[in-house]
């Protein structure tokens, strides 16, 4: 088996002449978790659909599990599992029937699928729920069942498109734990998300895109070290903006103001903290820089719809 599970070169896709994916390159190594990050509308889902052969690119090359995409997309999808952004479990069937019916789409014999169902239900923590209707499941249960469904063909590569959007913290942590289990089994994961904590926890390597173009790539640690000062002081209050202009700016390396919050980035935040201790009207927190700081620096703070 080749060590590269997915290789994308100079990928381009245009809608009505406007590029939504514009010359992206990346490569997934076997067994890693690769994260594709970007604000809404950055081209994440389009990139994913292109990789799966669900839409044809306007330029560039894709090779997945040794198969050229889109030409041999169907063959490649035989060994791929997909967790889409929107749940599309089959509401006409029970939990267990969903797994059975989906396995048949891969040409698996019923005997093989029925052997796999108990362990997949266990994996999804749905052991006692096999007979339940889809409409009676919680959001977290649906997500876990969708993940279990994506594993019915024992795939080498698993795509997850914003897998934890809309889940409560308990459900997110359970899903993350399951994804780590899959990585320990040697599966390769391709994840899109706009939750930076999720990317930081799970991913070995990240690619940040915006407006269809690569903005940065590397390990979470590299991205933080290379793109941003190590310490952050967030200052809150009505007077934060005025304080930033008058004193704060001089005490840090870089600062941003957003509403009533001033974000101060510094290599050494000692002098800044000394100054803030004297100002009782301002609240602040001092923390290490994280991926979200990098993301906001690289893609901007303005809203995306």
């Amino acid at each position, binding site marked *: 088996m080749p060590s590269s599970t997915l290789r994308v070169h100079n990928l381009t896709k245009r809608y009505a002449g406007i590029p939504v994916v514009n010359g992206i390159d990346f490569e997934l190594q076997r067994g890693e978790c690769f994260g594709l990050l970007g604000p809404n509308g950055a081209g994440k889902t389009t990139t994913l659909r292109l990789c799966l052969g669900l839409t044809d690119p306007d330029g560039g090359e894709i090779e997945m599990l040794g198969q050229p995409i889109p030409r041999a997309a169907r063959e490649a*999808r035989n060994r791929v599992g997909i967790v889409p952004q929107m749940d*599309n*479990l*089959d*509401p*006409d069937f029970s939990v267990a*029937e969903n797994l059975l019916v989906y396995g048949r*789409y891969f*040409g698996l014999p019923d005997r093989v699928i029925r052997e796999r169902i108990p362990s997949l239900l266990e994996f999804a923590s749905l052991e006692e729920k096999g007979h339940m209707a889809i409409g009676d499941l919680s959001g977290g249960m649906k997500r876990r069942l969708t993940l279990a469904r994506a594993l019915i063909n024992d795939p080498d590569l698993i795509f997850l498109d914003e897998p934890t959007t809309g889940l409560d913290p308990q459900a997110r942590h359970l899903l993350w734990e399951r994804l780590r289990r899959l990585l320990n089994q040697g599966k390769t994961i391709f994840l899109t998300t706009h939750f930076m904590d999720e990317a930081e926890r799970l991913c070995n390597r990240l690619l940040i895109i915006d407006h269809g173009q690569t903005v940065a790539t590397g390990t979470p640690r590299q991205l933080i070290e290379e793109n941003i000062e190590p310490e952050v002081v967030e200052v809150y209050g009505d007077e934060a903006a005025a304080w930033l202009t008058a004193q704060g700016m001089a005490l840090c390396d870089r600062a941003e103001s957003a509403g009533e919050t001033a974000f101060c980035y510094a290599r050494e935040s000692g002098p800044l903290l000394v100054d803030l201790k004297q100002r009782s009207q301002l609240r602040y927190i001092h923390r290490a820089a994280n991926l979200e700081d990098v993301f906001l620096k690289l893609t901007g703070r303005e809203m995306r719809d």
Partner: protein
Amino acid sequence: MIAKKYLRPPALSLRFFPFWRRNLLVWKKLAAAEILGNLADPMLYMLGLGFGIGAMLPDVDGVSYITFLAGGTVCYSTMNSATFEVLYSAFSRMHAQKTWDAILNAPLALDDIVFGELVWAACKSFLTCLAVLIVIWVFNISRSPMMIWTIPLSLLIGFCFAGMGLVMTALSPNYNFFVYYFTLVITPMTLLSGVFFPTSQLPTILQSISSVLPLTSAIELARPLLSGKVPPHILSSATLLAAYGAVGFYIALILSRRRLLK
């Protein structure tokens, strides 16, 4: 504008089968209600209209009115069965439930899915035809052995109207859109195709329109069979049904590709 890549010929294979099987599994769950509907609808039609209106009428085209109506009902019911399946049910699977999207993530192509819907709808027509034949037999409207030939015919009628209906499904933004199809296509066709009265009653201009409608061809095949006769023009009528279905299916496939693979 339709891009050239959407125009490629249909890529058909047996891969549609697991999807067809999925639809069968859902049908089995709802079989009791489905079968009841399949039996009750034609029964109410034929007995209500057939005995009610039939009692006031002399023979029509040489047979009792209820026998005349039975030939129309076989075709009308099988047409509706396939039409409802590809309009409302297939649209639910494509649009509301996103079942098509889920299947596209498996190693099936869109062509397999649309073809699966077509074959499944033809099978629904087949099931409906069986129910209508049972009613016809039980109420002694016809006992001709020739009527067994309406069973393969029902698959052809189902194929024809499923192909046509899938065009609407691929175009539809929502369920309300289908009202246009029923009001502008299905209902006028029903009245022009000789379901309830012979097409010879129509003005000449409407008769020429009627002669190219698929439901007319279907009835020209089914009606003689129920009276134990060999239909005239078997080849041309069957070809017309197959052509409507095939052209409809190809257009539906192009529109579905444009809708879902963009």
